[in-house]
């Protein structure tokens, strides 16, 4: 029976060596709560500068598939941030995928159990975003506790231009394009019916751990569509109604 630190080290080695591992729970089952403790150990090993959080499993379809009733979260670090329209090397990744997202930037601390209105009022701005995910597990095969331990597969993210929150964000049309061709269609409503509700769920999850969401946090509210494989040479763009685009050139 290996310790939480040993499990985090196994994940850390997978990242460093760019070699996928069997899911950790195959050897020994552990709870989602333990998954979050392993995630914390992993982040300590990576020694990144925390800039925000990402939500996972925010679509009803994924929640049903994984038999869960609440989303999960991971941590975003400055090292994961990719400039909009930048070249992005895949050489450090195992089997990257990319998905279209909505990002919030908070201006006030959020804690406890805020209403949607309170959560929105605590936001400075909103943006189109792309998230690169790269499970450290073979074939993206994992339990919920595994993926939490693996920092929810977080690898990189791109934020488009920030917009003040002056328009409703509950049903913004979204299109994911790869090399100019639309490949996924959706709406921001795919995130729990309204991405603001995803932000609320995040604050509630943090509250359970005795934490709050600090002012100045970037929050990726969840994927609006299924993820698509990201390959060298791909130009990937998400277009979001009223929010513009976030783009990446994979190399």
């Amino acid at each position, binding site marked *: 029976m290996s310790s939480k630190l040993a499990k985090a080290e196994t994940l850390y080695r997978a990242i460093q060596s760019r070699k996928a591992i069997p899911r950790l729970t195959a050897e020994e089952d552990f709870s989602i709560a333990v998954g979050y403790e392993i995630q914390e150990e992993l982040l300590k090993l990576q020694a990144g500068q925390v800039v925000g959080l990402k939500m996972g499993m925010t679509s009803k379809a994924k929640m049903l598939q994984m038999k869960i009733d609440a989303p999960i979260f991971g941590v975003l670090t400055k090292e994961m941030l990719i400039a909009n329209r930048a070249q992005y090397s895949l050489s450090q990744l195992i089997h990257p995928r990319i998905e279209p997202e909505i990002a919030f930037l908070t201006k006030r601390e959020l804690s406890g159990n805020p209403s949607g209105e309170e959560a929105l009022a605590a936001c400075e701005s909103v943006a189109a975003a792309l998230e690169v995910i790269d499970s450290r597990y073979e074939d993206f095969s994992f339990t919920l506790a595994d993926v939490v331990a693996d920092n929810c597969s977080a690898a990189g993210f791109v934020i488009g231009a920030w917009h003040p929150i002056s328009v409703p964000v509950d049903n913004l049309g979204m299109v994911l394009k790869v090399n100019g061709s639309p490949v996924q269609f959706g709406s921001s409503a795919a995130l729990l019916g309204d991405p603001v509700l995803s932000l609320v769920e995040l604050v509630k999850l943090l509250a359970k751990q005795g934490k709050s969401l600090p002012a100045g946090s970037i929050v990726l509210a969840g994927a609006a569509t299924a993820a698509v494989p990201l390959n060298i040479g791909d130009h990937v763009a998400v277009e*979001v109604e009223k929010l513009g685009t976030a783009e990446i050139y994979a190399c």
Partner: protein
Amino acid sequence: MQESPIHTQLAQQLWEARIQASPCEPLSNTASTLTIPDAYSISDINMRRRVAQGAVRLVGKKIGLTSLAVQKQLQVLEPDFGYLTSDMQFADEAILPISTLIAPKVEGEVAFVLKKELRGPGVDRAAVLAATDYLLPVIEIIDSRVRDWKIKIVDTIADNASSAAYILGKERHAIKELDFALAGMALFLNGEVASTGVAMACLGHPADAVAWLANTMARFGQSLLPGEIILSGAFGPVVPVFEGDHVLVKISGLGKVECRFSGGNS
């Protein structure tokens, strides 16, 4: 399109299946050489029969197979169309008798209500926008009179593009109010989001689907007329519905439309 005894017979089969809410076998099983023009002939026969008594009017058309995913599934390269009659139309917040349907599904989309004639060929997006009076959010209820939705392209075309009913929202919006290609669609089933999409998923732009229809009708010597209601095609995946279900569709910039499915006869 020539009417023949086999067309009449297959039209009758679909007519009975609809009236009795009891599915029939795929037409493509019994008539394996059925072509797409044959299928439109069958659809025409039932539309004319439906409006023949005078109580029911022809009010417009629906465009189907507007998503590349669905076209791929049915191995076709273009959309199809069916007819909308006045008895298929319901008002916002209507309660629909589910017992009249076989295996219904719902989808979120928009209706173009025309103020000018659109006569092809050569109709393009700009012509459609110029001829459009206003848009409405719509729930379309599709239903296959063919057992278990085992449809090939000719089955669905003959079956009025699998259309059963549609619910029109109340708010009228001019299309120019919107950055329309990116308009979001969210369909909620009993309060939970069940399908999302975007206008662009409908053939790149819903107005392009209407242009396709106008140009296709021109091949039959017909045009789209002022006052016609054109459902341009789904913005996102379809969702099956059952007795008691409540459906709400929101289209960004166009408001909402909702309906409920009851049990029992009506």
